[in-house]
C-alpha cells in the first residue's frame, strides 16, 4: 500500500464567551496526535499553541472556526474568526500586551502571553486581521522538530 499524501482533517466551531468549552479542540487534537505516535514534545507544542489560539477566539471574538490538518510532516492549524480584529498586530505580539475585559481577566486570562506563547511553540505563525471584521491565524508545527523551540 502506498500512503503518499495522507492527511487528516478536523474542524471545530468556537463560540465567543464560551469559556467552559475552550480547550475542546486542543484536547481532541491531543488525543489524535497520541494515537499517531507523535513525539510528546511536539504534541505539547501543538496543544499549547492551539489552546492559546482557541482561547483568544473565545475571549476576544464573536465566533470562529478552527481547521486542523495533520500530515506526516506537520500539523497545520487555521483559525478564522468574526470579531473586532486586531488594530496593531505587532503590539498584540508583545508579551504582556492585552485588551482583555475585566470579565475575561476574572476567568484567569488576559496576561498578554497567549500570542507570544504561540510564537514560541510553533514553527510558523501568521496573523492577518481586518478591524471590525475578524482575524485569521495560521500556525504550523513540524512533526520532526522534537527539540522544541523554533529558530
Amino acid at each position, binding site marked *: *500500500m502506498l*500512503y503518499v499524501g*495522507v*492527511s*487528516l482533517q478536523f474542524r471545530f466551531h468556537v463560540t465567543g464567551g464560551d469559556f467552559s468549552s475552550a480547550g475542546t479542540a*486542543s*484536547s481532541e487534537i*491531543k488525543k*489524535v496526535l*497520541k*494515537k*499517531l*505516535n*507523535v*513525539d*510528546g*514534545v511536539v*504534541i*505539547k507544542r501543538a*496543544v*499549547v499553541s492551539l*489552546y492559546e489560539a482557541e482561547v483568544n477566539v473565545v475571549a476576544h471574538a464573536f465566533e470562529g472556526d478552527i481547521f486542523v490538518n*495533520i*500530515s*506526516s510532516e506537520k500539523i497545520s492549524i487555521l483559525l478564522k474568526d468574526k470579531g473586532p480584529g486586531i488594530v496593531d498586530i505587532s503590539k498584540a505580539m508583545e508579551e504582556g500586551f492585552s485588551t482583555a475585559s475585566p470579565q475575561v481577566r476574572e476567568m484567569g486570562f488576559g496576561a498578554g502571553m497567549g500570542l507570544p506563547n504561540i510564537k514560541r511553540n510553533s514553527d510558523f505563525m501568521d496573523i492577518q486581521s481586518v478591524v471590525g471584521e475578524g482575524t485569521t491565524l495560521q500556525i504550523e508545527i513540524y*512533526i520532526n522538530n522534537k527539540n522544541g523551540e523554533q529558530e
Partner: protein
Amino acid sequence: MKHDDLKPFHHALKILEDNCIGCVHCMRVCPTDAIRIFSGKAHVDQNRCVDCGECLNACPVDAIVVEQDDFNKIFSFDIRALLVPAILIGQFPEDIVESQILAALHELGFTHIFEVETIVPFLNDVFIDYQNRSNKKPLISSFCPAIVRLIQVRFPSLVGNIAQLKAPLDVAALYVRNLLEKKRGKKGKERSVGVFYVTPCAAKIAAVKSPVSDEEGRINGVINMDFIYNKMLRIISDKKIKPEQSPESVLRSGREILWSVTNGECYYEKGRSLAIDEIHNVINFLERVENGEMDEVDFLELRACDQSCAGGALAPQNRFLTVERLKNRVEKNSNRKNFNTRAFLTKNDISFLLENISVRPISPRSILKLDDDIEKAMVKMESVREMMKLLPNIDCGACGASSCSGLAEDIVKQEGSLDQCIFIQEILVRKNEQFIEHFEKIWGKAKLNRILSVKTNREEL
C-alpha cells in the same frame, strides 16, 4: 500489541473464569480500556492493565481477585520479618492498642515487625535533596505503582517527571533485610531471612513481583491485607491477647503514618505541591500537566485510590474511618516520646541506603498509538473515523468493547470486526424491520438515518 524491548508487566489481578458472567461492569470502569468481553468472559490486555483495582471494585460477582502467596511460605524462613504499612494499623479501632496488633502478628508467626513509614523521615531528606538537583516540573511521586504504570501507558511524555527514587516500601525492605542479614548467625549455621509485606492493593503486589525498572525485589512474599486482617481480628477478639499481656510496642511512628493517605507526602513538601487521589481524577489532571498548564507546580502526589491507600481494594475497613483512626493515633502518640527515625539509622545504614535508593529511568509504553509509523497510523485513524460515522455511538458494550470508538480501534488493529456490533447486524445486514422500528423509537430518526445513509456508499457490507 508487542513491546519489543520491554518485559511484560506482572499482574496481580486475576479473573476467575468460572465466576465471570461476562457483564460489562469492569470494562466500563477500566481507566486504560484494558478489558474486552468475548466467549462470555472478561479478558484483560496485559499490556494495558495497571493493576489499579477499579475492576475488582466494580465486579458484581466477585470474579476478580488478587493473587495471593501461600501464607505458609513464611515458615520456610528462620527469620520472618513483616513490613507493615500504617494502613493496616488504621483498620483497627483505637481501643485496640498497637501492642495488641503487634502481638497478633507475632502470634501468626512473624519474628520481626517493622512499620514501613518509619523510614519516611529519612526518605524526606533524600527527596528534598533530589528535588533540589532535579529540573523537572512538576516532579511526580513514584509512590503509587498503579500511577507509575498509568503514566507509562497513557502519558508516555511524562515518564521523565517521575522521581527516580524507590518508594518507602522498597527502602524499608532494603533496610530490614540488610539489618537482619547481619544478625543471621555464625557462618555455616546462618539462619535464612524472609521479608514479607502486607499489601492494601494489587498494584503493590505487581510492583513487588516486577519492579518497574529495577533489579529483582527484596521481598520474599506478599500477604493480602484483608486476609491477614481477618486472622488478626480472630486472635485479638478471642481475647488470646489482652492489652496488658502484649509485648512492648515498637510501632512508634508519628506524623509519618499519614504518609500513605491523601496529602501524606505533600505535607512534607516545601514548594508548591498538590495531592490528587482517585485514578480518574489523576487522569484528568495529568491531561493538563501534559498540556504544560502545570509547569509552575513543584510536586505532585498522585494516588490511584480514593483516599489513597486507605481506599486500597484490599483494605477491609471504610476508607474514611481508616484515615480518621490514623489521625487519632498520631494525636495520641504526639505526647509520647517519639521514636527518632533518623537516629536509629547508623552511618553505615545511611550510606548503604543512599547507594541503593535510585531507580533507573522509567520507560514509556504507550498503548494509545495505532501504529509506530505515523503514516500507517494516519490511515488507521481515518478508518476509525469512517467507522465512527456508522457506529451508533451509544457505547452499549454489547459488542464486547468498551465503547463504539473502542470497537473501531479494535477493528483497525485487527483485533475485532464490525459484525460484533448488534446494531450494524440488525439494521444494515439483516434489515430487521422490528429492530429498526424499535431503534428509531429510542434513539431517534436522525441517528437511524445517519447509519442508513452511510450504508449507501459502503458496498462491502
